[in-house]
């Protein structure tokens, strides 16, 4: 009987749906497959999820890193500008994808904010910054609770070292530790090794900061980031590599004494040894060079230019400026002395220096900033009279917590610990009170006069420059960022610029804690606009909140609507503003790293135009001019392709502690002449230092860093060629999944446009895209990734627990346009197709997909080979629910069993070294703890001996009583430590055995097969 068209259509639809049911299952399994952490495919998803370009050198670096982390770690030493932070972020994302969540990032304090920002923006990885402030009020034995939750933690290295001195960090099982700028501090660990026998000296006084962290870093997988692994001598590289293996005296580059013997002659690596050392280094270090990587990067590096804008003060300004400057330079003012007499000299000196630093900065910034500082002085002076307490550290604080912390450390102060001082009334004489009152009057006068100066010479010249910039659209984007250290200056500038034709063109950006009503209103407006224009398309789980939302919204506000962005140091951290290429330093910190951070907001990967940096310099202050000249000429901050931090010149700024030296000099020398002499000598010192670094003495050794691997270009090319295919397959699978779902649910689906990296489509009534994520399309299309609720829903529907599809089908050989000859022997045969997902659980869980196809060929069961399977899969499917199983379950299970066994052995062999390592690290960790307690005991005993000696040497009753009390305290401590030690030793073996059994269990791979579908087929 002839079929009615309606029946044919519905039959076709049924066939189609069955095809899609099979297809959707295969695609979802492929997309969701839990992969081995070292599988290249495992981080395609990470790239698609994150806002980064997958540059080949970064893929190369993370492949290297992920492999080497299995053996303890490695050094990522790409040149500046190649994105080490991105690489570290990718490694972290990968770790998190394989459920290793506990990651510690140890950084220079001032970079903590930047890391936090980048991780969130690029990788949607939340992280918690912990600083000394978080320690306040927490008992020593509860400090480990700061790290209680699983997650990513960022700490400054001094803070991390202090914590680990008390074994706080060791109490947590870290999956990964990342050390940024590892060459600073950590590379010098070599100084604690003996040159004679190569042994590590626990008692050494060198490098205490690194030494505290040494055991922890050794036994945890560690990623060391540095653009400058070699600064002064090759032993620094040896030092860096010492963090990788767990045994104290073991190193990939050989024992310390052997290494020195074989690889160092007269302070250099002999030329003939370079190739060999390079080979060894290649095992633990990856270094990409800009000239290699650039050819394969999406964006090439642009140049950086500098414009020095000299301004003059008018008479009124100059007079006031000089008077205030003279006041602040006096050492005898009460503003510097209150309460500090009660403090130890060193701390008092540190606090004074910190205050002077902050006042000098204010002086160099604006009268508004100065007014604020002077107001603070008046308040403190008044409190001196009444005897109230004052927190001096807070008095010197700026707008950025991490910078404040760094400043404290520079002066040997413990950040976050308030230096609360006061002067008790009886200490003050009437004369003191009279002098204080006189000082108050003087400072109040300055404040009033400063308030009368509205527009300064600097302001006038800034306005002129801004107008010029906006008149050159071919050279500049119509955007300018202005940096200043002070919120007060920021507000002053806003007022000035609004009065000069820039009303409604300005965005204010600061740390957020002291906003005015108007500023709060602007923030709310920016957030509302962001929600409307961008937020609507952002999946809920990715939406930022709180402070992060505000920052994001303000940048977007600037990008889309405003011309000028006035920011404090808070904005120098972590904001990406490649849409702007003009930057003004309204005031210039004397800290090359901070200058670099500011410039790095615009001059970074993704910037398409050359960047211009405009520095406002006070031409009336010769000393300031001179300091600026040194910064300009001796450091490569303003001129190079990328900037400071690059190899030799970046090293320089760190080596000589520029800002501190300048500040100390200003404290010591008061006259212009003395200062100029000092500056000249300083300049000569810098030249000498530069010469030493550039010297041919290290010329050979530096060759080591030229190119570790001569095949790198070839490999990058290879990666670049393979990448598109991997991404393409991933995107196609995702698209295929959605397409299948639309067919099954009879929903509209249409591809609207395609380009190299993205496919835009309509699904139902909404628009989406798969492929590389960007911020351009976000207004109209939602980005689809595996985390998107739409995909999550589809997957939930396909994979309900325990249910596999099982049905009969016809495989339409006769309808296939090009069936090939491979299947000819099987036409009219029946068989079965089992598709399994098998989860192998060892150290990690990884899934593998198994396609088992077998055919009953005249009573003999043949398992199809790969070629036959591929051919068979090209046949279309039509339903045949009446078909029964031609091949029994037992045949299929037997084949599955064999394949699973093979795979289990492979996985076991791959995992075994990791298990060995974990076990070994466990032992080392427990031994370390024991040693720590022994050392503690020894320390207390030594103290007791000292006290005993003092007791026998004293005749003073009061002193004697004090000493006896001290001895009793020691005895109590000793008893406590001994108890701890005995307890520990008792439990040592038990702890070890328990952990060992847990790890051993993971060795024996458990395979859990899950059937996805079974099709009983008939080939016709």
């Amino acid at each position: 009987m002839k079929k009615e068209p309606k029946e044919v259509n519905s039959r076709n639809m049924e066939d189609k749906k069955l095809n899609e049911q099979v297809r959707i299952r295969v695609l979802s399994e492929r997309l969701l497959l839990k992969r081995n952490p070292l599988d290249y495919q495992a981080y395609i998803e990470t790239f698609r999820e994150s806002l980064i370009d997958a540059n080949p050198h970064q893929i190369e670096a993370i492949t290297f890193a992920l492999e080497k982390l299995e053996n303890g770690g490695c050094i990522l030493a790409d040149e500046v500008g190649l994105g080490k932070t991105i690489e570290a972020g990718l490694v972290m994302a990968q770790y998190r994808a394989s459920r290793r969540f506990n990651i510690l990032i140890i950084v220079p304090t001032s970079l903590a904010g930047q890391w936090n920002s980048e991780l969130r923006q690029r990788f949607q990885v939340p992280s918690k910054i912990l600083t000394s402030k978080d320690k306040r009020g927490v008992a020593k034995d509860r400090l480990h609770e700061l790290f209680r939750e699983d997650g990513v933690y960022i700490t400054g290295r001094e803070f991390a070292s202090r914590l680990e001195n008390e074994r706080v960090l060791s109490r947590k099982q870290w999956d990964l530790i990342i050390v940024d700028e590892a060459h600073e501090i950590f590379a010098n660990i070599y100084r604690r090794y003996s040159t004679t026998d190569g042994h590590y000296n626990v008692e050494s006084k060198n490098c205490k900061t690194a030494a505290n962290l040494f055991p922890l870093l050794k036994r945890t997988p560690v990623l060391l980031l540095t653009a400058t692994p070699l600064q002064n001598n090759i032993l620094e590289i040896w030092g860096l590599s010492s963090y990788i293996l767990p045994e104290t005296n073991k190193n990939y580059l050989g024992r310390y004494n052997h290494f020195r013997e074989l690889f160092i002659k007269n302070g250099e690596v002999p030329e003939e040894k370079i190739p060999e050392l390079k080979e060894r280094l290649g095992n633990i270090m990856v270094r990409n060079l800009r000239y290699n990587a650039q050819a394969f990067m999406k964006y090439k590096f642009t140049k950086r230019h500098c414009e020095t804008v000299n301004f003059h003060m008018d008479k009124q300004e100059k007079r006031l400026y000089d008077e205030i400057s003279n006041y602040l330079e006096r050492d005898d003012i009460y503003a510097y002395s209150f309460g500090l007499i009660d403090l130890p000299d060193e701390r008092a000196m540190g606090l004074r220096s910190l205050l002077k630093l902050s006042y000098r900065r204010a002086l160099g910034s604006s009268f508004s900033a100065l007014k604020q500082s002077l107001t603070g002085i008046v308040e403190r002076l008044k409190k001196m009279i009444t005897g109230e307490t004052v927190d001096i550290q807070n008095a010197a604080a700026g707008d950025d917590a991490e910078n404040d912390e760094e400043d404290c450390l520079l002066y040997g102060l413990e950040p976050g610990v308030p230096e609360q001082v006061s002067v008790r009334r009886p200490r003050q004489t009437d004369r003191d009170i009279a002098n204080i009152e006189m000082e108050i009057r003087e400072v109040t006068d300055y404040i009033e006069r400063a308030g009368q100066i509205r527009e300064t010479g600097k302001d006038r010249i800034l306005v002129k420059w801004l107008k010029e910039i906006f008149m050159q659209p071919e050279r500049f984007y119509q955007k300018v960022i202005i940096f200043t250290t002070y919120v007060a200056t920021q507000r002053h500038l806003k007022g000035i610029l609004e009065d000069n034709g820039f009303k409604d063109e300005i965005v204010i950006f600061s740390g957020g804690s002291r906003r005015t009503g108007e500023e709060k209103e602007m923030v709310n407006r920016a957030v509302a606009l962001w929600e409307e224009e961008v937020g609507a398309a952002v999946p809920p789980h990715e939406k930022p909140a709180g402070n992060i939302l505000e920052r994001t919204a303000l940048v977007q506000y600037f990008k889309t609507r405003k011309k000028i962005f006035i920011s404090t140091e808070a904005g120098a951290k972590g904001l990406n503003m490649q849409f702007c290429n003009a930057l003004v330093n309204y005031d210039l910190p004397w800290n090359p790293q901070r200058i670099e951070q500011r410039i790095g907001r615009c001059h970074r990967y993704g910037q398409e135009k050359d960047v211009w940096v405009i520095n406002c310099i006070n031409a009336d202050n010769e000393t300031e001019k001179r300091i600026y000249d040194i910064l300009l000429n001796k450091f490569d901050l303003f001129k190079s392709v990328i900037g400071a931090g690059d190899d030799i010149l970046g090293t320089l700024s760190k080596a000589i502690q520029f800002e501190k030296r300048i500040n100390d000099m200003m404290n010591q020398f008061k006259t212009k002449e003395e200062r100029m002499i000092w500056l000249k000598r300083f300049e000569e010192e810098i030249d000498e230092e530069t010469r030493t670094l550039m010297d041919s003495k290290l010329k050979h050794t530096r060759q080591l860093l030229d190119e570790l691997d001569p095949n790198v270009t070839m490999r990058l090319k290879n990666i670049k060629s393979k990448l598109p295919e991997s991404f393409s397959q991933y995107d196609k699978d995702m698209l295929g999944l959605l397409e299948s779902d639309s067919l099954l649910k009879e929903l509209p689906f249409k591809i609207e446009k395609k380009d190299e990296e993205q496919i835009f489509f309509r699904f139902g009534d909404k628009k989406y895209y798969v492929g590389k994520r960007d911020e351009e399309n976000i207004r109209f299309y939602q980005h689809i990734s595996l985390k998107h609720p739409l995909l999550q829903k589809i997957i939930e529907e396909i994979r309900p627990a325990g249910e596999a599809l099982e049905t009969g089908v016809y495989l339409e050989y006769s309808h296939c346009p090009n069936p090939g000859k491979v299947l000819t022997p099987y036409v009219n045969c029946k068989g079965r197709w089992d598709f399994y997902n098998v989860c192998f659980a060892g150290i990690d869980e990884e899934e593998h997909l198994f396609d088992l196809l077998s055919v009953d060929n005249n009573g003999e069961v043949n398992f199809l080979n790969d070629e036959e399977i591929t051919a068979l899969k090209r046949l279309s499917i039509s339903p045949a629910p009446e078909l029964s199983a031609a091949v029994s379950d037992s045949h299929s299970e037997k084949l599955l069993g064999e394949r699973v066994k093979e795979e289990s052995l492979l996985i076991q062999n791959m995992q075994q070294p990791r298990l060995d390592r974990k076990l070994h690290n466990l032992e080392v960790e427990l031994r370390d703890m024991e040693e720590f307690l022994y050392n503690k005991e020894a320390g207390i005993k030594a103290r007791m001996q000292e006290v005993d000696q003092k007791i026998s040497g004293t005749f003073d009753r009061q002193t004697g009583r004090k000493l006896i009390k001290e001895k009793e305290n020691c005895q109590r401590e000793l008893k406590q430590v001994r108890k701890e030690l005995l307890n520990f030793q008792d439990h040592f073996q038990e702890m070890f055995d328990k952990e060992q059994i847990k790890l051993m269990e993971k060795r024996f791979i458990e395979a859990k097969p899950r059937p996805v579908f079974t099709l009983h087929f008939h080939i016709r």
Partner: protein
Amino acid sequence: MAHFIHTSDWHLGNSFAGFDRDTAKKLNRARLDAVKAIFVYAQKKKIPFILCAGDVIDNGQLAAESILLELFAVVKQFPHTRLILTAGNHDPLMANTIYSRVSEESYPENVQLVQRRERIRIAAGNVKILAASNSEKRGNYNPLHWIQPEDIDDNMIHVGLAHGGLANEKFQDNPFPIEPGFARTKKLDYLALGDWHSYKKINDRTYYCGTPEPLQFGDAGCALHVTIEKQGAIPKVEPVNVSQYEWLQEEVELSDRDFPGFKAKLAQGNPGEKVIRRLTTAGFLSAKNYKTYKEIIRMERERYYKIDDRVSITPTDTDFLDMADGYMKALLQRLMDMKQQDFPLPEEIFNNVIPQDLLDLEQSLSPEKQAIVDKALLKLYNYYRTLGGDK
């Protein structure tokens, strides 16, 4: 259905003479860890008992009691897994061996040391174990010779457990010889043997599992997970790798051409891994490469148990010519000349001197010729040196 683990030859307390003290200690620890891994596996797979076919202790007479006590400490961590031990020829049940020195109270409840001959019934799986311990170091009898037809009960699974060598033509002097067909003859479902240090399947019912942790290079043992459905069924035997260390030995013939690859391979190793390496090197290197080679060997020595270094500096032309005189000298001169020229190799000169594989090469292979001649000369030189000709 019955399932159990078959293991043997633990040799706990082996002195590992030839290793430094630190490594010997680690290797001994590894032996105990391998035993622990067997228990971990048994616990994970819910296997009720483990059969150990002798040589538990490396030297039963001299070993300190602590070695057995350490073993018991491990076993106590797995109270639900029964361990049935037999004594082998290294640790026979004699008056002064370790088993008699350690008090009975020290034995954990889940450990049973088989006395001379025992019949042990195990409820889990309805199993009967017919086991024997050796009571002397050498014996020329089958330790299970006493098994009678009455020992075989209906519906039970019968497993033999003993320590001894295979009685066949090849191994005639083995102590405690056991016939290969013994299991079939005595109607045992499985015969678990110990003595050999590598895994060997004798037949469907008779196995040596080998030592679970290598004692020397070449040992390839494991634990066996044995499953028997019912009386008479062929046992399903699955090897389980529990070894802690890998013993790798490698022989490398070096030349200047291979040297970069050798360096790269050596540098790739991971000093932290649990591998006992033995390297035998031979060959010839140029003076420059030889110097680098020596330095590398020195740096890498710590990673190796032993390096048999037989590499020499490539002899000069004079060295070659000094090897012989007369006809041989002319031949050698001709070989050296041929390195520079391009004419066919005369076959009659190379018969019995040059190996066959070189002769098989086509005479027109000039790009290869140099390498072949080098090889030939070096081989000759090596023979010459072996005979003491260079002294």
